[in-house]
């Protein structure tokens, strides 16, 4: 178990990379840290590893307070964002290095290294040095080095960022299976929301050194707590439209929609609906956003249509064959059961049923 309390990291230059952060990660959990570049993911991971000393707050691993414990005694394994392989050692020695430090006999650690390398399709390059490997291969060596020993915690800093799409999917499946087998608590940094949704038991969305929301992939995807999380999660960003409450009607971008209970007359709201949950109608409707078709992007099995409504853009995913013509008038119809209403910066509860 990893527990962080009031964790703050201010770098010497005055950058507050992690800000008063509280987090509990359960034993054996696969936990993803998700957020835009520069939000403090690497810093948080390094603080858990012990490579950064927190400015204030505590770090606990497995029930013990390790805030001042050196990294080597925290029993964690880390994959660095830039791999940090040993340039003078070949792949086998790189993977076996943590075992060597732990004084594992040579034959045993070499066997272990070879087995781990095989699982990551590295068997053909065991005697090469990092300088003779591609970026993706180096990344897999870094991953192999971390998983060859059996630590209490895995800390992965974007371990799949340099792999091609196919390898990435393979490595993803491999990681998930490995983590299930070993049941090692894993913190996984990524800025790929698809990866986080696919892999994690729970996800934390970070921004500016703070946690915006922590929850299961389903929670995060279906009920993002803030407009920021809503716009960050999902293959296509959610439509977030400003609107007003008048009586029991929401007036949003030219549409009149039934207001959920609990809102007061005159409230300003943000209406959120995913493009996947937005349909197009060719004829006028009261509960739809009127506009003209401005852009059409092919997604393979569907099209992403962008509608210009005044100065706001609304996106909708339209199945093959139903594409409207560019420049024609269209009405974007939100599926109200899937829509979210934010007042201020928070999700308004209850959600429209």
């Amino acid at each position, binding site marked *: 178990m990893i527990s962080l309390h009031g964790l703050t990291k201010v770098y010497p230059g005055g950058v507050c990379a992690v800000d008063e952060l509280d987090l509990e990660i359960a034993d054996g959990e696969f936990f993803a840290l998700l957020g835009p570049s520069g939000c403090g993911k690497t810093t948080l991971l390094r603080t858990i590893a012990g490579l950064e000393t927190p400015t204030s707050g505590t770090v606990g691993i497995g029930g013990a307070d390790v805030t001042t414990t050196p990294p*080597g005694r925290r029993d964690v394994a*880390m994959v660095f964002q830039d791999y*940090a392989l040993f340039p003078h050692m070949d792949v086998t020695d790189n993977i076996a290095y943590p075992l060597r*430090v732990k004084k594992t006999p040579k034959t045993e650690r070499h066997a272990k290294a070879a087995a781990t390398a095989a699982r990551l399709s590295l068997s053909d390059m065991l005697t090469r040095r*990092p*300088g003779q490997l591609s970026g993706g291969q180096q990344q897999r060596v870094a991953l192999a080095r971390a998983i060859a020993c059996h630590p209490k915690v895995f800390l992965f800093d974007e371990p799949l960022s340099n792999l091609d799409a196919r390898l990435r999917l393979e490595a993803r499946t491999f990681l998930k299976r490995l983590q299930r087998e070993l049941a090692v608590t894993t913190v996984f940094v990524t800025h790929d929301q698809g990866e986080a949704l696919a892999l994690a038991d729970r996800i934390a969305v970070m921004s500016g050194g703070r946690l915006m929301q922590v929850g299961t992939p389903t929670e995060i995807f279906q009920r993002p707590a803030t407009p920021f999380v809503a716009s960050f999660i999902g293959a296509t960003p959610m439509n977030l439209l400003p609107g007003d409450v008048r009586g029991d009607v929401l007036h949003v971008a030219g549409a009149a929609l039934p207001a959920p209970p609990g809102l007061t007359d005159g409230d300003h709201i943000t209406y959120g609906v995913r493009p996947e949950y937005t349909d197009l109608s060719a004829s006028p409707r009261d509960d739809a956003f009127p506009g003209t078709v401005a852009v059409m992007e092919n997604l393979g099995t569907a099209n992403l249509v962008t509608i210009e409504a005044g100065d706001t853009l609304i996106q909708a995913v339209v199945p093959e064959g139903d594409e409207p013509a560019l420049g024609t008038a269209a009405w974007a119809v939100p599926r109200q059961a899937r829509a979210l209403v934010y007042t201020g910066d928070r999700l308004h509860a209850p959600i429209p049923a």
Partner: protein
Amino acid sequence: MSGAANRRRGPRERAGQSRLAALMLSPTLVVLALVVLYPLLSAVRESFYTSGETLDADGFVVEGERFAGLANYSGVLGERFVNALANTTLFTVATVSIEVVLGVLMALVMHRAFRGRGFLRASILIPWAVPTAVSGLMWRWIFQADGVANTIIGQQILWTTEGVQAKIAVIVADTWKTAPFVGLLVLAGLQIIAGEVYEAARVDGASAWQTFWRITLPLVRPALLVAVLFRMMDALRVFDLPYVLIGPRKHSVETLSALIWDEATRVHYGPASAYGTMLFLYIALIAFVFVKLLGADLLADVRTRRRVAS
């Protein structure tokens, strides 16, 4: 130019390029031949000739140069040459090995981030910047009978006379002077090691000692080897320090360079050239063995590292 066109023209262009390269290098090669090859060859030639007045077989006085065969090399087996060779070798082995240890330590200290690091780096280099003649005199003063050295150890040792103590004095002074050079080259090697590599070792739980032996040292090896090569060749030709510190024609500190200088000042150009040739061969042999044993690896390391860095 498009990539395809480039590839098609490849071989011809490369031939043209190497011709251009040869053309542009030729002035340098000519100058090198003039100032390096010619003196070298003429010294070797000189070592087979003798000059000055002698009587020929018929009792006539002859002047000028005459071919002497290997006569000039007869001294190579003599006690003085062997002694000078032994001194030179001793100084080289002793100073270079002490300097490597001290230089690595200095580099590790200089590499640490702390306040006043720039000042420390500059001051560590002072011994290297001082002219050898000056530092030789300074150490002579330190090593005189009532000097600082004797005061500190509370003994009355006549450092600058003949004997083992003179050898020690030379080794101490030379080490003081050139350890900073090794330190600086090793520091340059340390600075190109990515910090993350140490962090990875720390997370793995490696001790400071393990990190030094398994990570730091192998990674600075190329820089260290270059430093050692330079220093070895430098030490094998040492002349000035023993001369200034102890004096000329001192048996216990006479190096090959000093012996050659002494023969030359006494107009024994033949033997001087012969010894010079021997010294040249000795240095060339050691450099060759060094590069053969360690050099290939050295170049490979540098290449790999450059790729990792890019």
